C-alpha cells in the first residue's frame, strides 16, 4: 500500500474497528480482568481443575458436547445423503421442516424433552402400560443428550446436504466398478468428499452444545453443565470472579477442542494423500 493511502485506509477501517473493540475486545478484557480479581486472584483460572464441582462440570460438558456432535454427524450424514439422493412425495416439505427447530429457544426444547421423557411424558406412559414401571430420563444425562441432539441436527444436516449435492455420483460408481463394497465406498469416497462440511458443521455443533444453557436450565437436571455452573456462581453465590473465569475457560476449551479436531482431520488427509 502507498504511504499516502494510510489515512484513507484508517478512515475506512474505523467503523469496523470501533464495533470490534466495543463489542469484542473491551468485554473480553473486562471479563478476563474480573475473572482474576476475586479472592483467589489468578488462581481462579485453575478452579476448573482445583474445584471438584467445576472439574466435574467441565468433564460432563465436554463429554456431552462430544457425544452429541458425533451422534448428530452420524444421523445427519445418513439422512442428509438419503434426502439428497431420493425423490419422494413430501420431500420438499420435509426438508423445509428440518430447519423449523432452528428458531426454538433452549427452553422450548427442554419442554419438548419433558413432554417426551418426563414424569408425565409419552415414554413414561407407554412404558408404564407395557411394563408397569415408568421410564423417566428427561432430567438425566440422556435427557440432555436428546435435547442437544434435537437442536444440533438441523444445524448439521443442511451443511451436509449442501456438500452431498456437489458430490459427483460417478465417483461412487467408479469405486463400485473397481469392486468396492458399499462400506468401502462410504469410507474412501463419500466421507472424504463430505469432510469439509463435517468439520464445519461439527465445529458449530460442538460449540453450540458447550454453551447451551436454556435446555439444561429447563430440565433442571442433577447434572450441572458448565453454563449452568456459571449461572449458579453468578446469581446464587454472587461469585462474579468465578463466573467470569469459568466463562473464559469455557471459551478456551471449546476453541482448543475445535483446533485439535481441525488439525487431526488435516493430518489424516495428508497421510492418505
Amino acid at each position, binding site marked *: 500500500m502507498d504511504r499516502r493511502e494510510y489515512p484513507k485506509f484508517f478512515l475506512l477501517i474505523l467503523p469496523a474497528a470501533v464495533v470490534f473493540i466495543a463489542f469484542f475486545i473491551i468485554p473480553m478484557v473486562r471479563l478476563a480482568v474480573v475473572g482474576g480479581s476475586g479472592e483467589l486472584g489468578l488462581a481462579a483460572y485453575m478452579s476448573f481443575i482445583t474445584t471438584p464441582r467445576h472439574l466435574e462440570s467441565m468433564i460432563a460438558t465436554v463429554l456431552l458436547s462430544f457425544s452429541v456432535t458425533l451422534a448428530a454427524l452420524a444421523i445427519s450424514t445418513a439422512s442428509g445423503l438419503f434426502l439428497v439422493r431420493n425423490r419422494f412425495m413430501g420431500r420438499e416439505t420435509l426438508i423445509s421442516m428440518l430447519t423449523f427447530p432452528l428458531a426454538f429457544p433452549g427452553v422450548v426444547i427442554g419442554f419438548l424433552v419433558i413432554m417426551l421423557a418426563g414424569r408425565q411424558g409419552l415414554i413414561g406412559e407407554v412404558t408404564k402400560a407395557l411394563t408397569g414401571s415408568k421410564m423417566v430420563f428427561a432430567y438425566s444425562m440422556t435427557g440432555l443428550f436428546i435435547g442437544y441432539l434435537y437442536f444440533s441436527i438441523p444445524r448439521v444436516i443442511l451443511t451436509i446436504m449442501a456438500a452431498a449435492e456437489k458430490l459427483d455420483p460417478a*465417483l461412487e*460408481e467408479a469405486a*463400485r466398478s*473397481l*469392486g468396492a*463394497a458399499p462400506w468401502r465406498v462410504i469410507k*474412501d469416497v463419500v466421507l472424504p468428499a463430505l469432510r469439509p462440511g463435517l468439520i464445519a458443521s461439527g465445529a458449530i455443533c460442538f460449540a453450540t452444545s458447550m454453551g447451551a444453557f436454556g435446555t439444561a436450565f429447563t430440565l433442571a437436571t442433577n447434572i450441572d453443565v458448565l453454563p449452568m455452573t456459571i449461572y449458579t456462581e453468578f446469581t446464587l453465590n454472587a461469585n462474579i470472579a468465578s463466573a467470569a473465569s469459568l466463562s473464559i475457560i469455557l471459551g478456551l476449551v471449546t476453541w482448543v477442542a475445535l483446533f485439535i479436531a481441525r488439525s487431526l482431520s488435516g493430518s489424516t488427509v495428508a497421510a*492418505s*494423500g
Partner: protein
Amino acid sequence: MTSQTTAVSVISCAKTFPDGTRALEPMDLEVAGGETVVLLGPSGCGKTTLLRIIAGLEMPDKSGRVLFNGEDVTTKLIEKRNVGMVFQSYALFPNMSVRDNVAYGLKVRKSARSEIEGRVSEMLEMMHINDLADRRIDQLSGGQRQRVALARAIAVRPRVLLLDEPLTALDALLRDRLRVEIDTLLRSLGITAIYVTHDQAEAMALGDRIVVMSKGKIAQIGTPRDIYYKPQNEFVADFIGTVNRLRRSDVRQLTGMEGEHILFRPEDAEIAPPDEAHFTGRVSSAFFLGDRTRLVLDGVGEAPVVIESPMREVFNVGAQIPIRIRPEGIMTLPAGEGDA
C-alpha cells in the same frame, strides 16, 4: 494381457424409469470377445442407459438379461461384474494421488503389495503418466486425468471396458490425440470394449462396429463403412456425416434407380461438363476449408445441396455449376425407409 476375452450378450433389455418414461425399448445386442463396439446417437437416445445396464449400474426391466460369455450376470451388482469404467467427468478420487487412484481396484481386491506396485507402474508406463504418479488430481489437466482414469480402469484386468463419453469434456486437439491413444490401447489389450459417444468421428475411428441408436431403439448396427455407405434408414443417413437428398425428378440422366429419392454424400459429387451433369445448382455460399471448398447450392431440390470440391478454383456466389454424382456414391434406402 488376459488371453480369454469376454463376449457380452444383451437379451431383450428394456428400461422403464419409475416415472414411466421408456429410456430403452426391448433390444438385443451381441458383442464378440475382444471387439470394440461404439454406441452412437444423440443425447436421450438411450445409449448411456444401455451402457449402464451392461455395467450393472441399472437393472433392465423384468424380461431383460445380460450375459458375459454365456454366464448370466443380470442380478450381479457392478462391484461383482469386474468391469472397467471410464466416465466423462473422469471421476478420479480427489483425496488420493494418481498412484493411489490407479492402485485402488487392486487394493480393494487385497492383492499383494508387490503385485500392486508392479501393476501400477506398468499401467502408468502404458499411459505415459509415470511422471505424474505422486501428483494430486487437481494438479492434472483434462487429458492427463482421462489417462489416469483409463489406467485405473484397466489395472484390475476387467472382463469388459466400458467408456461413457470419455473425450467429450476435452478440447478438440486433445480429443483427437487421446482418441488415437485409446484406439492403440484397445487394439493392444484386445479387450472387449463398449464405447458411448455422440460424436460420429469418434465412432468411425474407434468402432469395429457401430450401434446407431435413436429414441431408445437401435437404428442400425454395422461396420463404420456399412453405416456410412449403406445407411438403412433416414435417421442413420442424416445422423452420420452430411447427406444430400434429391427427388428423382430433380436429376437428369439417372436411370435404373429404385425409390422416390436418391441420397449422396458431398464428396461423391463433382463438377462436370454440362452435358454429363445430373443437375445444375446455384452457389449460395462457399466455404474454403484449405484442402477443399465446401459449396452450398440451391435451386435444385427442396433443400440446399452440399458438395465438396478439391479444386483450387474460386467460386462466386450466384454462379451456376453443373454437377455429376459418382455412380458408386448414389445411395438408396431400403423400401419403405426412404420416403419419410
